[in-house]
């Protein structure tokens, strides 16, 4: 993975010094609330219901074992012993003290981590496929390009006070696992007719109150022009995006109101003006690709026969392998999902001791690297099949081997009313109730691939509008209600879910979910037809009839 050079390290050290000074001036009353709010947000600090929340950047989800151990020690020393993985591959702490945050940032800087631009109306963390570099359907490893984009975004002086936040995601695989169509800019590595690899650029996707799927602005861009093209889009947005209404301020609204053709004309004109002065040299790409060179795989890994034997002998192990591992491009290896969705744990939470243990497992089995995923789990990407059985046993002992990746209990969930000052309704408690209702793992496995996304308010941090089943918490006169949607997707066939009907009461949510699942089982034309395919084929009516039958 990318290793900081002296300049990178100096930059984040100087950022810590800068923020320490700003915090001291704020605590002395020398910076106003509104001004400090903007400054702290650009260092990842929200003021939440109970305490500040600190969001740390996980660049395209890639973390080293020393970084995990540092997160564990921060969880122990400054927080309540756990951390939370977000949908944008970042890491959150919910209980730090504001006056200690400069110290936390200094600790993070010691392991090449920071919280720069993880919030605020600026360029956010660049995200990518959590299986980058190891999956079987990839054109090229996208992470070198992510890192080049990340460096361009960090402390970009012109784009720190945008109309609204701005998110970029990169994908290089046939199956889009990075939700690129739902980002302000989606970057796809593609091959043109001449066989050259470049970028297809989407613009204007986004979730939140007005979910919109991104539109293609350029079908093919030469690699060397990536930064000039991004800069042109950002300049057009910075100058033209709406600033009169924060709910109309994202680039998706600009694209919708002005039309993609007009935005493209503005972007291309600006790009033609600046592109020659901003070419990324071939040498930069070569050096960056070298930073992400594949680890030294064991060439004899494919000769292993013990894995097949264990699969045949141990049903629990084979179920875990089926659900919690992914194919690897190197024979004899698999990528392993570390499930942070144990039934009795808040989705995406991981304790300090689990973080330490995963760091040890990464060192022992996976070249010292871990990835965080868009669906709030972790990945150990390079596991020899011969080692899977012992790894599974160790993960199981840590409660990190619930075999539910991609199933109905692999729920994306925001912190909800328990932590977030924006939330209208609880999400973690209802998720626990849903999990309690769905306690039959065989049934869960039979249901197959179902993505449930659950947000506690309209801001949609858990991407409910693109969940196969979306759950949205709403407040009605001080009471928590829940709006359900069906048929959303953030993958290749991106779609915004349709509203099932009126919002339902909190205690009705688990029953509504089981009703929806029963309708699916009754309606699917075969066991191969996925939930999403069934919803798309039969429509929402049968689900609606069942859920609202008794009302």
């Amino acid at each position, binding site marked *: 993975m990318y290793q900081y050079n002296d300049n990178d390290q100096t930059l984040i050290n*100087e950022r810590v010094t800068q923020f320490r000074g700003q915090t001291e001036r704020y605590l002395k009353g020398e910076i106003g609330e509104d*001004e400090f709010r*903007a400054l702290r947000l650009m260092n990842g600090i929200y003021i939440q219901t109970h305490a500040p929340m600190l969001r740390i950047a996980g660049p395209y989800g890639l973390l080293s074992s020393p970084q995990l151990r540092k997160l564990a020690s921060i969880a122990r020393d400054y927080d309540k012993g756990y951390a939370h993985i977000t949908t944008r591959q970042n890491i959150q702490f919910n209980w730090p003290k504001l006056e200690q945050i400069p110290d936390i940032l200094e600790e993070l800087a010691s392991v090449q981590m920071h919280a720069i631009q993880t919030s605020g109306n600026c360029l956010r963390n660049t995200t990518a496929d959590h299986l980058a570099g190891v999956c079987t359907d990839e054109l090229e490893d996208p992470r070198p390009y992510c890192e080049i984009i990340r460096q361009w975004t960090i402390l970009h002086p012109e784009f720190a006070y945008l109309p609204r936040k701005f998110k970029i995601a990169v994908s290089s695989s046939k199956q889009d696992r990075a939700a690129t169509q739902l980002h302000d800019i989606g970057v796809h590595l593609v091959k043109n007719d001449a066989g050259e690899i470049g970028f297809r650029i989407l613009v204007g996707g986004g979730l939140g109150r007005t979910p919109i799927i991104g539109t293609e602005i350029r079908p093919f861009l030469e690699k060397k022009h990536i930064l000039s093209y991004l800069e042109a889009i950002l300049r057009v947005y*910075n100058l033209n995006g709406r600033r009169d209404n924060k709910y109309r301020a994202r680039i998706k609204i600009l694209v919708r109101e002005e039309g993609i053709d007009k935005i493209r004309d503005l972007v291309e004109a600006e790009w033609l003006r600046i592109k020659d002065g901003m070419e990324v040299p071939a040498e930069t790409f070569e050096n960056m690709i070298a930073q992400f060179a594949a680890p030294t795989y064991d060439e004899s890994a494919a000769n292993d026969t013990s894995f097949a034997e264990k699969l045949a002998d141990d049903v629990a192990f084979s179920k875990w392998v089926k659900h919690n591992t992914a194919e690897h491009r190197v024979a004899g290896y698999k990528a392993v999902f570390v499930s942070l969705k144990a039934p009795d744990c808040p989705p995406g939470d991981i304790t300090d001791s689990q973080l330490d243990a995963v760091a040890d497992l990464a060192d022992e089995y996976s070249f010292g690297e871990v990835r965080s995923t868009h669906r709030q789990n972790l990945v150990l990407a390079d596991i020899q099949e011969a080692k899977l059985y012992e790894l599974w046993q160790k993960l199981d002992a840590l409660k990190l081997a619930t075999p539910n990746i991609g199933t109905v209990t692999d729920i994306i969930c925001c912190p909800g009313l328990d932590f977030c000052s924006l939330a209208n309704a609880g999400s973690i408690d209802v998720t626990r109730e849903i999990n309690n209702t769905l306690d039959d793992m065989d049934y869960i496995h039979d249901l197959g691939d179902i993505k449930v996304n659950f947000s506690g308010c309209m801001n949609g941090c858990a991407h409910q509008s693109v969940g196969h089943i979306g759950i949205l918490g709403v407040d009605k006169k001080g009471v928590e209600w829940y709006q359900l949607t069906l048929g959303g997707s953030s993958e290749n066939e991106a779609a915004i879910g349709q509203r099932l009907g009126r919002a339902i009461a909190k205690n009705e949510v688990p029953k509504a979910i089981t009703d929806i699942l029963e309708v699916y089982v009754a309606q699917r034309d075969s066991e191969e037809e996925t939930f999403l395919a069934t919803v798309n084929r039969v429509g929402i009516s049968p689900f609606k009839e069942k859920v609202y039958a008794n009302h």
Partner: protein
Amino acid sequence: MQIIKDKQLVESNWTYVADGDALNEGDITVSLARWNEEKSALQAHQGKVGVRLESDADVNVLAEDVDSLTLVELNFPAFTDGRGFSHARLLRDELNYQGEIRAIGSYMPDQAFYLSRVGVNAFAMKNADELAVALSTLDDFSVKYQASTL
């Protein structure tokens, strides 16, 4: 009035002449609208002349005029309005404007560093304390990623 210019505290004697008011002597700035309407009269003015740009301005209209101007003021209506940052970039990179760009209005001294990196070289602030903070922040970072900015 004291301002920061090229990392030094200096005295500024420029005055802004509101639309409709008679031009006064000495170095003056006027609105973009007034500049466009009274360009020839302003170019004959005894003192130096500058333009004050509001955040919704189109800086490209100054393309023919940059050599006549010695000061462009970027007037920030609120520190959250980042359009002035792009205006500064366009003035420097697209119009090749060489004169002074001064940030004025409602912005934070903590923004001075980023402003300096997009081409702003002068800062007017609310008071001496803010000037001191702005001056100190100009050296916040010794390294940068973006090859395209200052």
